[in-house]
């Protein structure tokens, strides 16, 4: 996965350390809007819906939207954007409740999903 941000930005962040406490980006919220639960390996994709007029996205909302123009697992999104998982979940909840992203849940009982297990087994054996 390639970074969509200039490397200068990331260098500055890492060198300077956090400028604000992580949950300041979410205005103190630690749970996504509407009680949505997003698993680490759920896949998120930006919809083509227009931004609602009342919604004021922050820079992090826009980065997430930009990163998930292609379907992207939340764990990869979180790693790429370099924000804590809990923060990314809250921001995703904002975007989902405005219809700007869709989150596709993965199988919660994968041990009973023979088709998925077969895919994993075939993949591993081909390595």
């Amino acid at each position, binding site marked *: 996965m390639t970074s969509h941000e200039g490397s200068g930005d990331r260098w500055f962040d890492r060198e300077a350390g956090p400028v604000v406490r992580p949950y300041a980006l979410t205005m103190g919220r630690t749970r996504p809007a509407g009680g949505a639960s997003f698993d680490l390996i759920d*896949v998120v994709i930006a919809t083509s819906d227009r931004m609602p007029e009342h919604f004021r996205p922050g820079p992090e909302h826009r980065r997430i939207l930009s990163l998930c123009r292609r379907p992207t697992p939340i764990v990869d999104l979180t790693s790429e954007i370099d924000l*804590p*998982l809990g923060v990314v979940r809250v921001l995703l909840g904002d975007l989902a409740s405005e219809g700007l992203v869709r989150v596709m849940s*993965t199988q919660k009982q994968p*041990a009973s*999903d023979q088709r*998925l*297990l077969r895919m*994993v087994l075939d993949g591993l054996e081909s390595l």
Partner: protein
Amino acid sequence: MDLNHSNGGPSTAKILISGGFGVGKTTLVGAISEIRPLRTEEPMSDRSVGIDDTRGVSAKTTTTVAMDFGRISFPSQLVLYLFGTPGQARFWFMWDELAIGAIGAVVLADTRRVADCFASIDYFEHNGIPFIIAVNCFDGAPRFEPEDIRIALSLGPGVPIVLCDVRQRDSVKQVLVSLVRYVMSDSRRPDQMSIG
């Protein structure tokens, strides 16, 4: 999973890599996958209260965990993630997060310190997550027969025990294959599949 496919997105799956500190979890993940960083900052749970000393910092209600994960992309649009479970007691709250929706777990064991994997085995047994034991064959570590290890770990007859070298990609591949085959097999009862 079908939903993801119909949208051209990847199917995703995850496997947990567990075991005591220094047993080779990170080496195993690195031998077979691309390693990426993950930051989490989670509200503190009951489990970490009393372990994280918050005297004098009464406003602190989150705890930070920096961890790595492994990522293997397959041509079939499948992405398999390998998550090492954090070893320290204060990070126990992360286990539930990682365990939900996992195919199963590999418990890495070191024959010089078998007791180090008791906590992992207890967790997976309690939560009905299928697991296998992978004995990392360290240079100079005593070699035991798998059945001796089964007795030392008080494991039932069904749980597979495999020997491995976590530095070797092919060996790690065989460990993961063994886990998936075990999960697919009929030897596990359906009531072992839910997480409480």
